[in-house]
């Protein structure tokens, strides 16, 4: 299944206060595929996702144990450089959060921070990424308009373009279509399928149909533990574990 895992999680445990959210998670995430994390609400899906780019760092009373290796390096090593790690991962949240600036500046935000200054270079990056997410034709005449004027579907695509602009290796999506209408949803789903040629994509979703449509592998998480992990069709249609069976039983359509 995995020759050279991009992300390797080893005995990861996350505790907030007295509440153990993730317990002893060990799994290798395959390279350049789409992996969906499914499971009932509150069981740790989002926490697992956020632990991959260390966005949990600022949560009060948090304790993280174990290792998360990306390209062989443990991102939780005290000497690791957080901003560098985060640059490797693009994040798409549940609701689009365009930065309070123009469309152009949104996409250029990441590259600017990491040192790209020349207008020529930035122009090229903005155009490339907006084209990659299918937004270019819709916004090319108003690149300097505030990003908040876009529709929600467009905003989410903008956030994707923004994330791609820093040249990540991995894309993380946290129920990223749940705020969108069906048309925008399917545009984003198609994007994920196309993008897996270049990026490893990890998604959290509670829509099983979406998981089936988009992903190559599925991880089923329940009460902070990984119950089952395997190729999509296998987990959804012929699950091996009881808990998994219970969760997906209504699905077969």
């Amino acid at each position, binding site marked *: 299944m995995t020759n050279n895992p991009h992300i390797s999680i080893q005995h990861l445990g996350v505790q907030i206060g007295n509440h153990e959210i993730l317990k002893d998670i060990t799994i290798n995430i395959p390279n350049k595929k789409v992996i969906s994390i499914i499971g009932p609400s509150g069981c740790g899906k989002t926490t697992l996702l956020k632990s991959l780019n260390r*966005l949990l760092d600022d949560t009060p009373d948090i304790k993280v144990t174990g290792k998360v290796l990306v390209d062989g390096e443990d991102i939780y090593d005290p000497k690791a450089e957080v901003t560098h790690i985060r640059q490797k991962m*693009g994040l798409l*949240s549940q609701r689009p*959060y365009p*930065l309070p600036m123009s469309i152009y500046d949104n996409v250029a935000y990441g590259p600017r921070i990491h040192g790209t200054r020349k207008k020529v270079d930035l122009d090229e990056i903005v155009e490339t990424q907006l084209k990659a997410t299918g937004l270019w034709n819709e916004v090319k005449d108003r690149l300097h308009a505030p990003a*908040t004027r876009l529709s929600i579907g467009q905003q989410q695509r903008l956030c994707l373009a923004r994330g791609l602009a*820093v040249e990540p290796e991995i894309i993380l999506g946290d129920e990223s279509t749940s705020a969108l209408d069906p048309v925008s949803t399917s545009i984003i789903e198609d994007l994920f399928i196309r993008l897996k040629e270049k990026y490893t994509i990890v998604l959290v979703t509670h829509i099983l149909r979406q998981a089936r449509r988009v992903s190559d592998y599925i991880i089923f998480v329940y009460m902070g533990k990984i119950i089952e992990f395997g190729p999509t069709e296998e987990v959804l249609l012929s699950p091996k574990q009881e808990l998994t069976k219970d969760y997906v039983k209504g699905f077969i359509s």
Partner: protein
Amino acid sequence: MLILTALSVAIVLVIGIGLYIKSEPILSKSSWGTLLTSSQWKPLKGLFGFFPFIMGTLWVTGIAIIIALPLCLLTSFYITEYAPNRLRRILVPFVNLLSGIPPVIFGVWGVLFIIPLIQDHIAPHFVEFSTGYSVLAGGIVLAVMIFPLIVSIVCEVLNTIPQELKNASLALGATKWETIRKVSLRKAKPGIIAATVLAISRAFGETIAVLMVCGNSPDVPHSVFDAGYPLPALIANNYGEMLSIPMYDSALMFAALLLFLIILLFNIISRLVLARLERKLAL
């Protein structure tokens, strides 16, 4: 009940009108323009130029804002973004306690601490002689008085910024400070402006603390070490002679009217800005 309410509100108008009426005598002698721009303040000769006092007020308030705004912004960022929870719970009450201290105490502190500080330690580097009683002293004291006002409003505004938005910036590899500078600051701008305007209008009206430390000489200040004479101090200091010199009472009422109008204006402006902000955030 209705009558009481109507009466209370009417007070705004009544105050304005009352002050205006009492200022009539002096307004009939000289125009608004002369009164506001002339620097001659010789009550015994009937000359009332308010320019030095307006400048005094501006100097003191300006210094106060220049000192307070950066300090308070930095403090608010620290409290909302960096401080651990336990520290936050201790810090916030102490900043708020500042707002409970009566102005006259600030004045006493100014006399005991700030004046010697300026006279002995700061001024000698810059000017030949200074008593320490200066607009700088007034500005410093005022700045400390408006700390809690600015900090509480800016913290409140910063707390309304959704964590997910900040996460979006962090996820792109930005540092916390870069996120504050490029994202939080932009989103909080209207609130910060409103807080500043509110703080300015508070500073304009502060009477006793400034009066005790700013020197009270009716000349236009030309440097931070010069003495100044803000409008409220003018009124407070001379109420005794008000009735004995002709037209003096009218002049002082005019000063009060000026103050009233300026503060009214600032209040309305900040209210408009805040209303705009609320509408924007609601979108």
